[in-house]
């Protein structure tokens, strides 16, 4: 029997009261995918992310992680599933009263028995991976938006999660830093086998790192399966090509 997909979204409908953001979303994310959720502003990308990570219960449907029904398991099981996820929020969402080192160390302190010295080494390595070596003792308020975002990624990677969910990784970053972050995402997938879900509308990232994707259509409030974005830009649905070519196609 084939293994269950790493993530499966089944009949998912997201709504705020009567207002339906997206309905009948059905797609599968396989292990090792860099799965891009793309779409225009306000199409519901972040709302979908909130359903994926347990912040917003869907109006209908559910999400499966390795065959386990995330929204319908007991709270302890859901908490265990959540620990398999690493989340990078759009603005970093760093805890302002903690230094960068403390931000990254907190999940390690909470969920491992590692001694403080080893945690410090791991934190230092993860901050170096995102280009923030030496900034351990800085507070988030002392950093630029791009640095906060990178520190947010370091925190998301703290526990080496199976699945990384990344909201707008490269928006607001300079081109070189954005490229470095994209390279890091590819390397995490290749080296550690991490499954990565990227929520973005940045074309360079979509085409540069995506191996599979869905397009959330804001007109019909549902998805269009798009497969590999580099193929979709050539032979995909007209709305997707229009989006991926900035309206040229």
């Amino acid at each position, binding site marked *: 029997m084939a293994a269950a997909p790493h993530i499966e979204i089944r009949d998912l409908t997201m709504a705020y009261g009567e207002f339906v953001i997206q309905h009948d979303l059905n797609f599968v994310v396989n292990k090792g995918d860099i799965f891009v959720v793309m779409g225009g502003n306000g199409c519901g990308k972040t709302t979908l992310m909130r359903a994926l990570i347990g912040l917003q219960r869907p109006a209908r449907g559910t999400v499966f992680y390795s065959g386990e029904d995330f929204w319908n398991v007991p709270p302890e099981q859901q908490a265990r599933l959540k620990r398999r996820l690493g989340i990078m929020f759009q603005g970093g969402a760093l805890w302002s009263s903690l230094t960068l080192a403390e931000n990254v160390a907190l999940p390690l302190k909470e969920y491992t028995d590692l001694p403080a010295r080893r945690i410090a080494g791991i934190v230092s390595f993860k901050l170096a991976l995102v280009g923030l070596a030496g900034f351990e003792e*800085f507070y988030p308020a002392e950093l630029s938006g791009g640095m906060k975002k990178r520190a947010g990624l370091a925190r998301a990677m703290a526990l080496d999660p199976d699945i990384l969910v990344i909201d707008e990784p490269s928006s607001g970053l300079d081109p070189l830093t954005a490229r470095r972050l994209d390279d890091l995402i590819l390397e995490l997938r290749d080296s*550690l086998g991490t499954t990565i879900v990227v929520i973005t509308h940045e074309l360079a990232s979509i085409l540069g790192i995506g191996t599979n994707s869905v397009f959330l259509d804001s007109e019909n409030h549902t998805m269009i399966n798009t497969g590999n974005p580099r193929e979709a830009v050539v032979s995909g649905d007209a709305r997707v090509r229009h989006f991926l070519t900035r309206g040229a196609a």
Partner: protein
Amino acid sequence: MVWVFRGILNLSLLHNNVEKKWRLDTRRIGDDLLEVSCAGRWCLDQNLPAAEITLAGAGDDLRRLSFNTAQLSAWDTGFLAFLRGLCKLCAERGLSIDQEGLPRGVRHLLAMAAAVPEQKGVRRGNGRQSLVSQVGAATVAFFRGVPEMLHFLGEITVSFGRLLSGRARFRLSDLWWEIEEVGPRAVAIVSVISFLVGLILAYLGADQLRLVGAQIFIADLVAIGMVREVGALMTGIIIAGRTGASFAAQLGTMQVNEEIDAFKTLGISPIDFLVLPRMLALILMVPLLTLYASFVGMLAGMLVSVAIFDIGMFEYYTETLRALEIKHFLVGLAKGSVYGAMVAYAGCLRGMQCGRSAESVGEAATSAVVTGILLITITASLMTIIFYRLGI
């Protein structure tokens, strides 16, 4: 010479009886090379060794390090953190490292971690300051804050000047909104606290006046006490906790969101637009709340006197009227206005001084309450002395 270290965490029961532990061997090859063999599972859930253990016992003639990971079954960033520590150690001792024996992914991630070198001068020590240093720093910070407070006071004065000459730019709707927020919405809490304070005053007075058979003078004590001092003081303190903190949090959040910067870049004075309506609202509403608090306090005094100490209601009422003079009301109203201005000043000052983080908003709110109550206490003392000297 061969050194062998073995992981102490044996997860065999958890992993289908497959032994899951790390193993570290070091072997000298030739005169100057140390081969480091990492086998087994090198993951975060293992009690991995410190990097220092690798070079323990290695002689001074060591020049190079190489790796053998043929028996490495699993790794994650725990292994990478170990290797990074080892790389740093080798750099300190001037040893060169041959990474060829490491898995490709490990080499790539180590390279990525080293790709952006640490910026010089960025790293900070996290040493604790001595008590003397902390006191010194706090004192310096306080005296540095005084000119800032005076500057803000000056800005508000200029802004009031613009208001009087009809050139201040703020929306009247904001003023009405603030008036509603600080006045009518504070009535409930002012009622409760003033009632209880009036009750306390009456009990306190009754206890002492009973000794000389002058319980009727409870009315004088409560009336003059509430109207001249306590009504204004309690209202000021309530407003400092309720409204001063709110002003600081509102303006602080606007600092965080760069809304105040947006006003400045448009050439609109944030003092006119944001501070002035808040100042006006409190200067206008606190005297009214003071008056109201005084009446509620007197009512509580009357209820206690009538119900507990057998003083007639009419008798109490007549004594209250006899005791009160118009000057007492004017003193209470003046104090209310000044306290209102102090609370607004403290709230707006701390809000405008707020940093750029969520934490600093909380600090601004706390500081606004502390500063507000401190200013109220200082001005209350000064005004009491001044009114006493003037015979009012």
